[in-house]
């Protein structure tokens, strides 16, 4: 049989080539990818409820009733328009752009179908996408009051990403707070129900009206209290149209658990007070290396920031040393990932070592795929690739960035990269 087997093998090789020529691989992959990712984001959980045999039966039926389905599909083009939104009094909202509430003010967002968001002071978010039934929002940090309008004619679907968590909403009022440093999510529901999934939770969690919850996968000590999130049932979340500038909510200090005690080195107190330049000078007097060995994770980040902003621009050691020490002493923490991002910044801005910068930004994105800095890390990664001459990867990142943040701060640059 061997000779014929050899001929069948060579025949098979020819057939593979002929098969490849029969269809466009790129078109097939593009079409399938879009459908798959759309289904994934819709169902999210790995235990998809998609019933394969039922889908195949549906395909059978669609063939049998092709003419009538064609008419129905034509009617579906009269689909309701997607919602629009405005920020504050009248500023049109832009997808992907950062929305941040400055000190002393809350920022309201109004959506065209009646939903309202109120971003508390110091909080930061983006609207990633809008559809006819809702929107997808990324809460990078801080407190957000949400009032999702229930529509009469169809179901709503709103999704709020907060770090590793996903909060799914179908018409309700609730308050959520996400603290990126500790990766803690606090949530309390006034009306309706929300579902929280993701992170270290094995199963999605429903939080119904009148319930509140604090979720964290962190083992760090500085978990923030949920007191500013828990609501009195009798105190409604104000509709943003009526909202005044709210009194500043109790925002955590930079080092909530680390206020230096009497007798502590002066640099600690100075850093805790936000006096970075003075803190850097004091740490040098104390002994910079000695200070780094003593410092907490947040103090190490502050020392590095101080050196990067106020230090000797020709010497990067003081900007970089605390970050490496942090990644070693506090490995696998969110602060360690923040250090990776900062190492990328130093390599990018100070050393002009773009390949090295790209590596660090990739490390951050790998460690914190939903982290608060991922938008910037992504944009910077794209820039670093372009500047290091890695054109193909720069183009790839540019395309991905535009898909994710079509109106984001690096969108113009991404389009520039793609047009070259």
């Amino acid at each position, binding site marked *: *049989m061997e000779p*014929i087997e050899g*001929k*069948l*093998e*060579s*025949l*098979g*090789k*020819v057939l*593979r080539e*002929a*098969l*490849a*020529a*029969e*269809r466009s*691989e790129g078109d*097939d*992959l593009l*079409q*399938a*990818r*879009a*459908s798959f*990712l759309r*289904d994934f*984001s819709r169902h999210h*959980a*790995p*235990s*998809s409820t*998609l019933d*394969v045999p039922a*889908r*195949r039966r549906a*395909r*059978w039926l669609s*063939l*049998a009733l092709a003419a009538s389905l064609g008419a129905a599909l034509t009617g579906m083009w009269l689909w309701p328009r*997607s919602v*629009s939104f405005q920020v504050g009094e009248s500023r*049109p*909202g832009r*997808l992907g752009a950062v929305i941040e509430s400055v000190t002393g003010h809350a920022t309201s967002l109004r959506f065209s179908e009646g939903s309202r968001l109120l971003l508390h002071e110091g909080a930061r978010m983006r609207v*990633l*996408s*809008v559809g*006819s039934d809702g929107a*997808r929002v990324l809460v990078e940090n801080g407190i957000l009051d949400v009032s999702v309008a229930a529509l009469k004619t169809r179901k709503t679907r709103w999704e709020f990403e907060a770090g590793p968590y996903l909060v799914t909403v179908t018409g309700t009022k609730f308050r959520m707070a996400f603290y990126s440093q500790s990766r803690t999510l606090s949530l309390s529901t006034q009306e309706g129900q929300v579902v929280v*999934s*993701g*992170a270290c939770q094995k199963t999605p969690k429903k939080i119904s009206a009148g319930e509140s919850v604090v979720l964290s996968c962190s083992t760090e000590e500085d978990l923030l209290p949920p007191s500013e999130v828990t609501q009195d049932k009798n105190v409604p979340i104000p509709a943003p149209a009526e909202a005044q500038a709210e009194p500043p909510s109790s925002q955590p200090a930079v080092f909530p658990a680390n206020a230096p005690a009497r007798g502590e080195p002066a640099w600690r107190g100075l850093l805790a007070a936000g006096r970075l330049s003075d803190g850097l000078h004091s740490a040098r007097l104390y002994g910079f290396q000695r200070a780094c060995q003593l410092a907490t994770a947040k103090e190490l980040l502050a020392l590095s920031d101080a050196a990067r902003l106020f230090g000797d621009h020709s010497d990067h050691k003081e900007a970089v040393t605390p970050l490496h020490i942090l990644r070693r002493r506090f490995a696998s923490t969110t602060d360690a990932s923040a250090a990776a991002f900062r190492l990328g910044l130093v390599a990018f801005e100070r050393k002009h070592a773009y390949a090295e910068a790209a590596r660090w930004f*990739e490390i951050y*994105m*790998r460690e914190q*795929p939903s982290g608060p800095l991922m938008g910037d890390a992504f944009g910077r990664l794209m820039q670093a690739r372009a500047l290091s001459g890695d054109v193909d990867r720069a183009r790839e990142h540019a395309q*991905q960035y535009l*898909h994710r943040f*079509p109106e984001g701060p690096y969108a113009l640059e991404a389009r520039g990269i793609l047009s070259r």
Partner: protein
Amino acid sequence: MGAEPKTITPLPFFGDDAALVRALCAGHAGAAAAFFDRYARQVRAMLLATVGPDDEIPDLLHEVFIVALDRIDTLRDVTKLASWLSAIAVYVGRAHIRTRYRRKWLRLFSPERTRSWQIEQPSSEARQALREIYAILDKMPLDPRTAFVLRYIHGMTLPDAAEACGTSLSTFKRRLNRATEHFLRVARTRPSLVQHLQDGTRWNQ
């Protein structure tokens, strides 16, 4: 504002297959895109070999990944992710072939969906051979057909092909022998195929 609905494309996922599977089980959106990008070509090639050229290849490709995602937490050995996916592709391909057999009568109502290749003229001898061979395969029972396409058209080794079919090696070999005998018996009645079987491959793309 009237913005068009935007589809979110997940951020890139960085990690090996073990990290990928963990991330998929956790519902990581970026991992879903990485999963597809890493294995879609392989799965598509498997589907194409199994069912032949078919307008529903993108749908089948989508279906394979949905089924895989649905069953990802049953994967015991992450080092076998690629072969596990191949097995799912074979399963989905075979189901489609069964559906295609049942749908043959619908050609009267939906000619585009189940169009016959005979409408088009072949543009090369290789493509002509492709049609003839798949016409033979379409008349073969499913088990031997699958064995034949995996071994000769997709070019898998015997153990890998047996694993993709979910059978023992000996069972696979029996099916392959049946398929080969059937194929040769019919191929010998087709002049272009006879030429090849006697002289070897002579088509160049």
